[in-house]
């Protein structure tokens, strides 16, 4: 994976920036016009793509860039969702709710970072997994704040007296946040902190020997990933209208990991591809199956088979994920387009 060192040098290399920019703008246009053409169902599905992508960017920073394994991201989504809904219930409005979501999750992330500094790999993964289980139980028992097992209904977003409850409104808001987080992550890579993270991922001891402030950098990685997850959680709670402890389980944490891996570990584009895969592929599978079988059979076990099977296939044959597939195909197409023009 390339480590960008300088804006200008990156731009001069092969002049790819122009092309990347065009594709980015095209994607933005597609995202913007979708609500005009599709049903509410698809709008809400694509909203979840944005929400998962936000959480995914956080996980990518932590795992793909800083190399820290976390099996408990769902805990930060939960803290964000519950913090937001609690603050909103107290009557402080949605902006305060979202701010609370990010702040609470960041603090929680810092809390996790402290012991995490001493652990690596397997042990860190299991520790974060345990943390996830504990937060899940806290959500179930702390009824005064979370509503306990019955969950809590989440009202529509309220900004300055204006209610943003329509699916398309939440859609745009989520994608707006997604874009912001994407840009933040992209820029993070270019900063010394971002490079420090990657150095830690590649070899912690070498990084430390080169003067990288390992503890500080890891702390930033954990807090940032938790902050993004908290934001995603707040959006999630409004997109769904209801949150309960049963949603923030290890299943969600694993789904996020699967998403990152299939999309492409260590790339930002991969997060978006992975999020699209996570939401759209079960739909595709249902559509394809519907063509072969009559009736509306939703066989149990197909969803885990789809994710597990895709994960295995990707890891065996295409470990760099969809992102690599797209890059290679894109490069191949361009090479042939160029050679065509030469003729």
């Amino acid at each position, binding site marked *: 994976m390339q480590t960008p060192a300088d804006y200008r040098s990156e731009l001069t290399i092969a002049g790819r920036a122009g092309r990347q920019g065009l594709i980015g703008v095209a994607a933005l246009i597609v995202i913007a016009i979708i609500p005009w053409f599709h049903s509410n169902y698809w709008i809400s599905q694509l909203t979840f793509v944005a929400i998962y992508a936000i959480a995914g960017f956080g996980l990518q920073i932590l795992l793909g860039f800083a190399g820290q394994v976390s099996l408990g991201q769902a805990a930060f989504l939960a803290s964000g969702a519950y913090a937001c809904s609690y603050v909103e219930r107290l009557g402080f409005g949605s902006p305060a709710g979202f701010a609370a979501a990010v702040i609470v999750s960041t603090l929680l992330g810092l809390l996790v970072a402290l012991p995490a500094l001493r652990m690596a790999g397997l042990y860190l993964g299991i520790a974060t997994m345990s943390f996830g289980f504990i937060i899940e139980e806290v959500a179930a028992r702390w009824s005064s704040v979370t509503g306990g097992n019955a969950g809590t209904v989440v009202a529509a977003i309220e900004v300055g007296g204006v209610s943003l409850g329509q699916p398309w409104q939440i859609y745009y808001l989520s994608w707006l946040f997604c874009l912001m987080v994407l840009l933040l992550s992209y820029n993070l890579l270019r900063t010394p902190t971002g490079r420090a993270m990657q150095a830690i991922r590649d070899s912690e001891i070498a990084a430390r020997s080169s003067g990288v402030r390992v503890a500080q950098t890891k702390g930033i990685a954990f807090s940032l990933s938790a902050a993004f997850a908290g934001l995603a959680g707040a959006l999630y709670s409004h997109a769904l209208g209801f949150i309960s402890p*049963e949603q923030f389980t290890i299943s969600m944490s694993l789904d996020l990991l699967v998403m990152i891996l299939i999309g492409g570990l260590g790339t930002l584009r991969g997060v978006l591809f992975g999020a699209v895969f996570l939401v759209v592929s079960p739909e*595709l599978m249902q559509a394809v199956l519907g063509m072969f079988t009559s009736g509306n059979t939703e066989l149990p076990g197909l969803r885990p088979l789809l994710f597990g099977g895709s994960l295995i296939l990707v890891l065996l044959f295409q470990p760099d994920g969809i992102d690599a597939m797209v890059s290679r195909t894109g490069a191949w197409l361009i090479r042939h387009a160029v050679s065509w023009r030469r003729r």
Partner: protein
Amino acid sequence: MFKTLRAMDAGCLTIIAGLAFGAIPAAATAAENQGITKDEILLGSVLDLSGPVASIGVPVREGQDMAIQAVNDAGGIHGRKIRIIYSDSGYDPKKAIIATQKLLNDDHVFAFVGQLGAAIVHVTMPLIINKGTLLLFPNAPLEEVYEPTKPLAFTAQPAYNVQARLAATYAYKTLGKRKFCAFYQDDDSGEQVLRGIQEGLDPFGAKLVEKTSYKRGATDFSSQFARMKQADCDIVMFGAVVREAAAAVLERQKIGWNVDVLVSQPSATDTVIRLAGGAAEGVLGVNQMLPLEMVKDQPNVEKVFKAYADEHGGRLPDPAFLYGYNFAMLFIEAARRAGPDLTTQSLIKALEEFRDVDLSFGMAPMTFTATQHVGSLSTNLLKVSNGRWTRIDVLK
């Protein structure tokens, strides 16, 4: 090698892109009606077909399908056949909400029948009602469905806490129990039972002596039972679901504690006897639906079960089949009474004129009025005798 990889990449991506573009417009063009056409009534049902309560969801679907098939084969209702679309919630509220929205906004169903799961109904009911669509006979004994009365929501079953209240009252007054313990699942349905028990004991000034909980999926209940045994209760009321209830009953036998056990509706089913075997002897339970073994010899039931056995290799359906069959039959009966001009309002009107309508399929007679949208507030008190559930009493 590189050539093949490129071809593979491009091939995969093209297939995915093509399917994506093909599937999305397909989902966008949906039927533009209210679920009723000249020859069809479209129903929706969000069940758990793959998750923790799939063992209930799958038989419920079988029951619904069988009832609907029978009526369709006989020509339908006033010339309309019933078509029902199922969605799998996996007992995940998120999936349930998305599935419900899809059935509402894309498929435009006329009504939701048999929606499964307290948590699921809790979150999807507002969605359904706010869209002006009917929520009929969910498989979720939830008080908020009928209390306060909502024009578009009808249910056949009293809520978990209502049944628990009746059960606790019965245990206090009739069985003379004074030291109550509760063993409940750490989720919404379990907590509702807990609430009901306390509601039942309050008028007598009695309180729970001990309560213990477990997380769904737990396999070891030794510490919970040790605690309750130490509290020396004379009855343990369960707010548990089938698997854990059976394991808990086995635990009770293991520690040799002869305390009475009264289980809530989800566990007052034949499956618990099948799993717990002899340890279930003497266990009490409440269930609004009569157990399979008790109704299977009725002529009309026998016919249906035989048809089922023919299709499923000679075996009897799961007890949850009765819910599916009965609730679908309720809809069919109401639609029949509503007449050829079937609309949401005409169906509501027909339902609100039900007086002691008895389908004779294990369910209590149903009565609906403009102010009571729950078909029956009574429940059966059952007891396991000689390896079978038998009815002891009817609690009102």
